[in-house]
């Protein structure tokens, strides 16, 4: 079996998973959650008003039809219109994805590279003072609430020192850059602690393997052993950890976006939740599920490239 048939087969497996996800979404929104018309019209609404609104929103249609709407949206990305803004949801997502990505993507790339570099460094000096200092710093960084970083950054770096914009956003390159610098810095600081700890554990797991001793017995230097032998083995768990986070980048950073007034998907989701805008929440749920499934497939395919033990059959 070659890699293309493998990918095709993995994609076919996606279909039942998606149907299941859509079923869960359907149950959550149509059966478990309270009647949206009640929330929208308030508690003094008449039965007639509610029925009219139900018809207008299409909630009176057969259950199965509504379920297949969700399934269809998972493939076409046509999620209908928002109840509150009446905009096309797919347009809202398109508009929100870019501001989100301008923050989350660079933050993700920087924090990943930085964390892997630091973890290789401390693995090289394992047990020495620098290793202990870094591990301590990671725990210290992790122990502080992300709100503290945001407020401190906005107050000290942006307001007092004037190094960054306090909040806001300007669409288009390169106008957005001044607005995203501080959010990126904060995300990097928040992620670097747990990431370094994870990568360090992964690398140290490999450092004590027998093949490392063999490499030393061959006469290889420690740097070559670390960057060639250890890193390639460590990549297997690292790939899972990294790739599976990518879909969440598109969805934006809820807290950061709302504090920095960045008009990204995180903010859209937050507004939709506050105003019970069911189609938007549902769209974000379906979108994240689809993205997650797709990136799981990508992880599996990458495995076959990195780890020769993973057979294609």
């Amino acid at each position, binding site marked *: 079996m070659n890699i293309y048939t493998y990918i095709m087969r993995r994609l076919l497996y996606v279909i039942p998973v998606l149907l299941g996800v859509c079923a869960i979404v359907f149950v959550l929104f149509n059966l478990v959650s309270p009647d949206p018309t009640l929330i929208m019209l308030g508690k003094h609404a008449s039965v007639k008003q509610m029925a009219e609104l139900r018809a207008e929103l299409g909630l009176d249609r057969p259950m199965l039809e509504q379920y297949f709407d969700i399934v269809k949206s998972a493939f076409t990305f046509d999620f209908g219109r928002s109840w509150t803004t009446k905009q096309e949801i797919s347009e809202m997502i398109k508009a929100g994805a870019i501001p989100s990505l301008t923050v989350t993507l660079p933050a993700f790339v920087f924090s990943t590279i930085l964390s892997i570099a630091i973890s290789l460094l401390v693995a090289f000096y394992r047990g020495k003072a620098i290793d202990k200092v870094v591990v301590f710093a990671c725990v210290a960084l992790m122990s502080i609430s992300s709100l503290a970083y945001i407020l401190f950054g906005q107050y000290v770096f942006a307001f007092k020192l004037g190094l960054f914009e306090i909040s806001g956003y300007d669409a288009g390159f390169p106008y957005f850059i001044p607005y995203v610098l501080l959010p990126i810095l904060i995300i990097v600081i928040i992620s670097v602690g747990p990431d370094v700890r994870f990568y360090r554990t992964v690398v140290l797991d490999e450092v004590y393997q027998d093949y490392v001793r063999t*490499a*030393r017995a*061959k*006469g*290889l230097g420690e740097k070559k052993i670390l960057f060639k032998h250890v890193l390639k*083995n460590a990549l297997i768990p690292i790939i899972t950890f990294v790739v599976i986070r990518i879909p969440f980048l598109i969805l934006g950073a809820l807290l950061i976006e709302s504090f920095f007034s960045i008009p990204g998907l995180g903010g859209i989701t937050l507004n939709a939740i506050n105003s019970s805008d069911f189609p938007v929440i549902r769209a974000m749920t379906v979108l994240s599920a689809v993205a997650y499934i797709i990136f799981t497939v990508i992880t599996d395919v990458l495995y076959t490239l990195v780890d020769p033990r993973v057979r294609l059959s």
Partner: protein
Amino acid sequence: MAEKILDVKDLVVEFNTDRGGVTAVNGVNLEVFKGKTLGLVGESGSGKSVTALSIMRLIPTPPGNIAAGEIRFRDKNLLDIPLDNMRSIRGNKIAMIFQEPMTSLNPVFTVGNQIEEVLELHQKELSNAQRKEKAIEMLRLVGIPSPEQRIEEYPHQLSGGMRQRVMIAMSLACEPDLLIADEPTTALDVTIQAQILELMKKLQDELGMGILLITHDLGVVAETCDDVAVMYCGQIVETADVKTLFAHPQHPYTKGLIESIPSFDSTSGKVKDRLPTIEGMVPSLFNLPEGCNFQGRCQNVSEKCRGSAGEPKLETIATEHQVRCFHPLS
């Protein structure tokens, strides 16, 4: 007399652990000659592997450290040379194979790649094509069928015996003067064991290297070694050439080890009723007794062994036959 390639003198290796310091190797002397095999025998924890790793300077430091002694390889003391020079000796002049063929190869590189890596390191004058050719040649030398295809395979595609052959091919690629084999056949089944030992013997005849063979299996020693050193609690308790050792063991521990080899009675063809064992346990290195370390398991134990005369010394009782015992057997 063959040329002496390795001379270990009074080697002491200590480990710092949470429970305090231990001396894993305590004053070991070994000599390996060109084209000859020295067997280093002993139970688990007797310090065999630590001795071997010390020669390669692969003792993890900390917690381990080579506290005293000399490791003379040809005319150099390996403990005095800088680490960079040591690296150019490892895999090149002194090679090592390990007990765990299943995990000793890197799972994500092809076996060809791993053999070529040694050549790339120590024989820089070779071109890529020459390296590949040499790797194929080495695989053929260790008896791997269709080496041209095998070279592209990953370790998981090979059996344990095949992997150990790859390890041997890798270790011999630079034609080392000394091969340290740390229990190379322990993890393999018996028929494969015999093949691997035969292969090592054959390659020794062809390449003329000295072998330090570490094993707990005296059967293996009898088949492959020229000289034997028996280790107990970090010390050598008896050393002799293989025939003398098996015919006239002087230390009760050596005798016990020889008697506990399963064997047939060659005249009647019957298996001996009961396999003799050495009673008792190896004492903890944290809590070694005064006097002789073997006193707790020895049948000939006397007051002298219990510490009144200090530790027994390694005494020469015949040419090339030394024993560390107050009451040698004959």
